[in-house]
């Protein structure tokens, strides 16, 4: 539940790191909370072209992410809901959100949002394979079929498999960056529609509608960040210590993302596939390491 | 009087009478009556087998009965068709359909008379067990059918006649040589002198082994090439497409029966080979000819432009199938004999429908016949049904027989033969598929009306769609008595369906018994 409250911190954290790295002061870490709060009080403007699908997009997107959150373990701590194959459900719930966001974008009839939708779908296609490969590698490593036992099992892995964990973590990190449209995949702060991917999709959403999207985005960052963070060695002495450790790990992942964003430039759209492909290769390698 | 003799004499006498009768109507009735009587007597003879006549001159065995029944049934269909057909043909000069000239028809009396003689000679072939007499009968079929081919008296049918006459005569002459070789092979047989070239003598107990293998082989080769020419086995088939495309539909149909008769000649020689332990040698040749015929037909059925020719090639294919089945032996034999019946029915139906289409559209070009489905729905339905029947699609009986032959090939572990057989059947189907629907369907609409052309939808079909001028040819109104001309093909289709779905068990046993004679 803490995730619900803390998630909007993450984008702030990333931006903060970026600003610091660039030598600026940057917006406060809680900027997203303020944005959300402001937006929440506004009215909305709907495009005359749109239908209920346009409104369903943000709602279903948020609902899907929220549901997916119940499946995310806090490191070795089990998730609210856990069952064999829950990682598939998690990934597909994100897919559901994306499907309707894409539809909502297409519903506006705008060429820009169509373009964003098209690129988003393409990125998703690219990210899905490393995500599954990484999760499968972890499942193999922990010899379990549900997220919670997997992450719980990782703590007890033999010492030689750290490299595998590291590789799987790298793959998940790429997925984290890709799915959340961060640099070097996408620049969330760009202001030219033609170069945007995720942001251009939500051009027409306003007010509370935008809140749903932005908040959903933050939650997704939390969710995928959690998958990476769970891989880090967390204190296992007590549940509260683990939870605290997990929060710290989440923050660490965000910091890492911030660092990556500050040091790398956005890669060209045509060369985009290389990154997820590399991630897939990492995940495969991790799998091979877990096999032996 | 012996039924067997009656079977030959009645059509012969009717043929003589047909020449004598002046007015058309009684002559047509005579034709119908003879056909019906022939079927009736054949049925009776099948029921109580009449005793052999003379020293094997005329005798009815299962094999002969099968081919006799086919001949008789086809003749009935032809006679039923002939009456409205002849009634439609105008006396005097008429314009040709494709070229600018006038021609006349042969006198109807000649036509009917020859038709009946033709029946008599075919019956003789089916009934005799003396190979010499069988030869005489087969040569006679060529001669009695020659005037039929030249019914429409113009240069194309004359060319057809000449090819038919010369090539078949040469072929049959070779078969005569085969008969001589056979009698050379029999010199040492004990019963040889008593009844030369009588089948029972040749395949009877103790006689067969005394045949001289070298002569027997030569005999089989000559007979196979000789009768094979008449039966349309590739590469001896060349006369067939050229002749069939010009003969009246009716005659082409009867030639279907004729092919079977020629095949019977080969089967008789095959029986002798089997009895003399030369089965393997003969089988190899039959399988070879069968497959080669199918292959040749497959090649020529691709891009065929003329539908009677297409039917001729299809006949070559099916004679190939039958030969293949017989050559394989085992279960395939019964299948092959069953197929002989099915093919005759299906091909007869197609020829009759083709005749109807010719009457409607006045052209033999496939590309010029379009929109049959709307212009003449029943004809179109029959044409499509014929297509599926001839390509061996269920529920038509052809499917069952082709399946049996495949099963036979597989049962004997002839994998290569089975694969080739299936492959060629598929190729032939593809070739014929280019033809039939195109004729039934209306002109393709290129612009407007419905969906725009979708990207990536490229036409697989050969480009004959563009080869024809635009504008659907509108067929002239159906001629008088047209409905009557639909009856025989309908009956044939029904027969094929019945054979395919609910064959009388006795008939199935009959085929299996026939099969035992030559396996």
């Amino acid at each position: 539940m803490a995730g619900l409250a803390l998630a909007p911190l993450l984008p702030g954290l990333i931006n903060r790191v970026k600003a610091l790295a660039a030598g600026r002061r940057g917006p406060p870490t809680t900027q997203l909370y303020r944005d959300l709060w402001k937006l929440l009080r506004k009215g909305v403007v709907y495009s005359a072209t749109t239908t209920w699908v346009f409104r369903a997009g943000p709602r279903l997107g948020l609902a899907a992410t929220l549901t997916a959150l119940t499946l995310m373990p806090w490191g070795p701590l089990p998730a609210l809901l856990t069952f064999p194959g829950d990682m598939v459900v998690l990934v597909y719930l994100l897919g559901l959100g994306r499907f309707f966001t894409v539809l909502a974008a297409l519903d506006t009839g705008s060429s820009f949002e169509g373009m964003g939708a098209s690129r988003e779908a393409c990125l998703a296609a690219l990210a899905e394979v490393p995500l599954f490969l990484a999760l499968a590698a972890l499942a193999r490593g922990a010899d379990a079929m549900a997220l919670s036992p997997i992450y719980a099992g990782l703590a007890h892995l033999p010492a030689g498999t750290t490299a595998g964990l590291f590789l799987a973590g790298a793959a998940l990190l790429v997925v984290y960056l890709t799915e959340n449209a961060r640099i070097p995949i996408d620049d969330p702060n760009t202001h030219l529609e033609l170069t945007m991917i995720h942001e251009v999709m939500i051009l027409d959403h306003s007010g509370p509608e935008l809140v749903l999207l932005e908040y959903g985005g933050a939650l997704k960052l939390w969710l995928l960040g959690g998958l990476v963070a769970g891989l880090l060695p967390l204190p296992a002495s007590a549940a509260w210590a683990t939870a605290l450790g997990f929060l710290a790990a989440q923050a660490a992942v965000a910091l890492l993302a911030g660092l990556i964003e500050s040091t790398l430039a956005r890669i060209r759209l045509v060369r985009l596939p290389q990154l997820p492909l590399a991630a897939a290769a990492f995940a495969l390698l991790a799998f091979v390491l877990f096999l032996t | 009087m012996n039924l067997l003799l009656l079977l030959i004499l009645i059509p012969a006498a009717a043929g003589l009478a047909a020449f004598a009768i002046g007015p058309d109507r009684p002559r047509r009735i005579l034709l119908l009556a003879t056909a019906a009587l022939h079927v009736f007597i054949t049925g009776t003879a099948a029921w109580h087998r009449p005793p052999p006549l003379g020293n094997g001159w005329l005798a009815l065995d299962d094999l002969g009965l099968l081919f006799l029944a086919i001949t008789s049934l086809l003749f009935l269909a032809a006679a039923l068709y002939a009456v409205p057909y002849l009634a439609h043909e105008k006396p005097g000069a008429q314009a040709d359909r494709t070229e600018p000239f006038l021609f006349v028809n042969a006198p109807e009396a000649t036509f009917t008379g020859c038709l009946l003689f033709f029946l008599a000679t075919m019956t003789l072939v089916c009934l005799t067990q003396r190979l010499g007499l069988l030869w005489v009968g087969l040569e006679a079929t060529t001669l009695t059918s020659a005037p039929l081919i030249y019914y429409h008296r113009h240069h194309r049918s004359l060319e057809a006649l000449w090819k038919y006459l010369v090539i078949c005569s040469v072929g049959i002459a070779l078969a005569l040589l085969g008969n001589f070789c056979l009698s050379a092979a029999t010199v040492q047989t004990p019963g040889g002198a008593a009844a030369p070239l009588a089948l029972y003598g040749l395949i009877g107990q103790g006689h067969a082994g005394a045949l001289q293998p070298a002569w027997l082989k030569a005999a089989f080769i000559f007979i196979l090439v000789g009768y094979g020419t008449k039966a349309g086995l590739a590469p001896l088939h060349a006369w067939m497409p050229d002749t069939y495309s010009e003969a009246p539909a009716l005659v082409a149909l009867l030639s279907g029966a004729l092919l079977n008769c020629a095949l019977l000649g080969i089967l008789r020689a095959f029986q002798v080979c089997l009895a003399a332990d030369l089965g393997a040698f003969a089988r190899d040749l039959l399988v070879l000819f069968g497959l080669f015929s199918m292959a040749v037909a497959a090649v020529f059925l691709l891009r065929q432009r003329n539908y009677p020719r297409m039917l001729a090639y299809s006949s070559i294919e099916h004679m190939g199938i039958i030969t293949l089945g017989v050559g394989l032996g085992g279960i395939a034999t019964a299948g092959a004999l069953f197929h002989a019946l099915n093919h005759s029915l299906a091909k007869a139906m197609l020829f009759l429908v083709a005749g109807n289409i010719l009457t409607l559209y006045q052209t033999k070009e496939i590309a010029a016949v379009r929109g049959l489905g709307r212009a003449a729905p029943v004809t179109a339905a029959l044409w499509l049904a014929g297509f599926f029947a001839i390509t061996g699609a269920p529920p038509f009986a052809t499917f069952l027989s082709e399946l049996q032959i495949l099963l036979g090939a597989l049962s004997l572990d002839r994998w290569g033969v089975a694969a080739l057989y299936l492959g060629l059947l598929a190729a032939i189907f593809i070739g014929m598929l280019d033809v039939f629907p195109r004729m039934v369907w209306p002109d393709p609409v290129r612009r407007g009306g419905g969906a725009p052309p979708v990207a990536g939808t490229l036409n697989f079909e050969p480009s004959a769609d563009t080869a024809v001028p635009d504008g659907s040819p509108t067929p002239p109104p159906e001629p008088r008595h047209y409905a009557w001309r639909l009856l025989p093909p309908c009956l044939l289709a029904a027969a094929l369906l019945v054979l395919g779905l609910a064959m009388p068990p006795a008939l199935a046993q009959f085929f299996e018994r026939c099969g035992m004679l030559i396996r």
Partner: protein
Amino acid sequence: MNTFLTFDLLLVLLVLTNLLLLVSSRLVTCIRTVAAQGVALALLPLVLGHDQVATIAGALLALTVVLLKGAVFPWLLFRALRVAHVKREIEPYVSYTVSLLIGILTLFAGYGIAARLPLPDPGISPHLVPVAIFTMMTGLLLLITRRKALTQVVGYLALENGIYTFGVAVARDGSPWLVELGVLLDIFVAVFVMGIAIFHISREFDHIDADQLTALKD
């Protein structure tokens, strides 16, 4: 005269007629030659002294053959010739010299084939089967290489003669007279019908060139 000698003389006559058929361009010569050939081989059974000749039926049969091949067929063909107004075979597909060469080759091939077929009766000349095959092949060669429809009929007759020779040689018990008669009747009708066809062809086309009958093809 010795039977064997007579017999071989007849065979030589057959060979010579064949060669003449192969080189002759005059249709009249061809018709006469093939008629002579027919008469010659009708005499073969007499020379061989077959049993069947002894019977009246057999004698009648031989007489019929002579009549048919020596008189009726030439008459039919000459009639067709008159109608068609042609005298010569023009430009065969294969020149006369080459035809001759091929003909001689087939004679050798005939010996080759005959070697594989043991004669049932050792009393028969070993040359008979090769000559029969040669005659057949001559007929087929004429059918294949000549252009005029009439020459094709002549070729058919030569083929028939060859087969008849063969029959005389190997089927010495022969076919029953009924079949023989049937065979003769068939051949007669065949030639008759071919004659009629030639008549029609010449009327329809103003020529009797079989090689120009190619409207029907694929």
